[in-house]
């Protein structure tokens, strides 16, 4: 059987979001490099996989998908081995999947870009942008702190896709000066310590070609 192909850069948190899901399910895959720095994502070859020209894309047999959160739903639904990432019915799980997408991501993504990715590309973080998103993310994480005081995981008692979808950006955030946003919130910190210790996630981060810490 042809291996699953995950197209993207191994350092990209949206790509790692999918790698984390594949690893939780114990699925073999190869990362096919799509180097954004050379514009590979705008070439016809890649646009045939994702017409929006973004990474990741996933090829699983005849199925080609893009949008990391949609890819992860597919992985969680199709593969029954490993933990149940998307037990249905779970209305609470659906809520927190959307919270990641519409409250957490819009602020953590620009923070990670400014503090981690931009410096790697030879640029400097914009302090105005950093402060704005750090402030907003703090308010969002206050809501998480209250929620995680009542719930071990976001959807309740068990680890699900709602937790997993946060992990790649939480990992990146932990490598920046804004790691204290998590570390200063006891329940958010406990949740992150727990989920980041999962063997599948240890495997995922071992494969991220992280440069030596700044």
């Amino acid at each position, binding site marked *: 059987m042809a291996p699953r192909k995950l197209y993207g850069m191994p350092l990209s948190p949206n790509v790692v979001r999918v790698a984390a899901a594949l690893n939780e399910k114990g699925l073999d895959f190869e990362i096919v490099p799509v180097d954004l720095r050379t514009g590979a994502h705008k070439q016809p070859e890649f646009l045939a996989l994702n017409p929006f020209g973004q990474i990741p894309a996933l090829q699983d047999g005849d199925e080609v998908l893009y949008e990391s959160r949609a890819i992860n739903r597919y992985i969680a639904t199709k593969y029954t081995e490993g933990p149940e990432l998307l037990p249905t019915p779970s209305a609470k799980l*659906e809520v927190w999947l959307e919270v990641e997408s519409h409250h957490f991501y819009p602020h953590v993504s620009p923070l990670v870009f400014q503090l981690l990715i931009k410096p790697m590309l030879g640029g400097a973080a914009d302090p105005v942008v950093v402060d704005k998103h750090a402030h907003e993310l703090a308010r969002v994480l206050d809501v998480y702190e209250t929620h995680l005081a009542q719930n071990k995981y976001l959807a309740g008692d068990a680890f699900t896709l709602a937790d997993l979808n946060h992990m790649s950006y939480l990992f990146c955030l932990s490598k920046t000066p804004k790691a204290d946003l998590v570390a200063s919130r006891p329940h958010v910190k406990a949740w992150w310590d727990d989920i980041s210790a999962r063997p599948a996630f240890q495997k995922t981060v071992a494969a991220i070609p992280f440069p030596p810490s700044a």
Partner: protein
Amino acid sequence: MAPVKVFGLKMSTNVARVLVCLEEVGAEYEVVDIDFQAKEHKSPQHLARNPFGQIPAFQDGDVVLFESRAISRYVLRKYSKSAGVDLLREDNLEEAAAVDVWTEVEAQQYNPAVAPIVYECLIHPAMFGVPTNQKVVDECVEKLRKVLDVYEARLSRHSYLAGDFLSFADLSHFPYTHYLMATPYASLFDSYPRVKAWWQGLASRPSAKKLSADMSF
């Protein structure tokens, strides 16, 4: 069965996303207004429903939810079989995957281009007396053109976004597109005939027509 409750305002885009799903499955519902002037969205009662202090929130008996796309999935899962509609396609992995991809596309590609145009052209002037920031609008129009290029190609191959069947992915576009059509940028769609035809099909659905009557700023 008691009607479900949607907390928010009928003219709100994200509230309408939930309402269009309720209409499509023919569920009984009531809209409970939230008084923003009185800061009701930040009241303890509302924060207990939606800790981010936003609309919509939703209640069905003991189930209390927020985030319009999560509420919509709940509604579609609960009522689809009895209504004879299948807008999530969860019994078919490939079709469900296509619905999920295009639902994410709406959220991550289409919405970030359209929402600021709606805010700058309609909401800011009408509700806050703030003038349109044309620079923001122009940037978003350029973004939207690129997105519509992809939509046009997609809708040239399929009658709807996820395939040859209407799905939640299409309906999720209704609220913001309804308001885009009330801005000068409605004419953008004239350059995209398949997109325009797809939109006109959505807008002429009984669910859309009924809700449109209450959707203006």
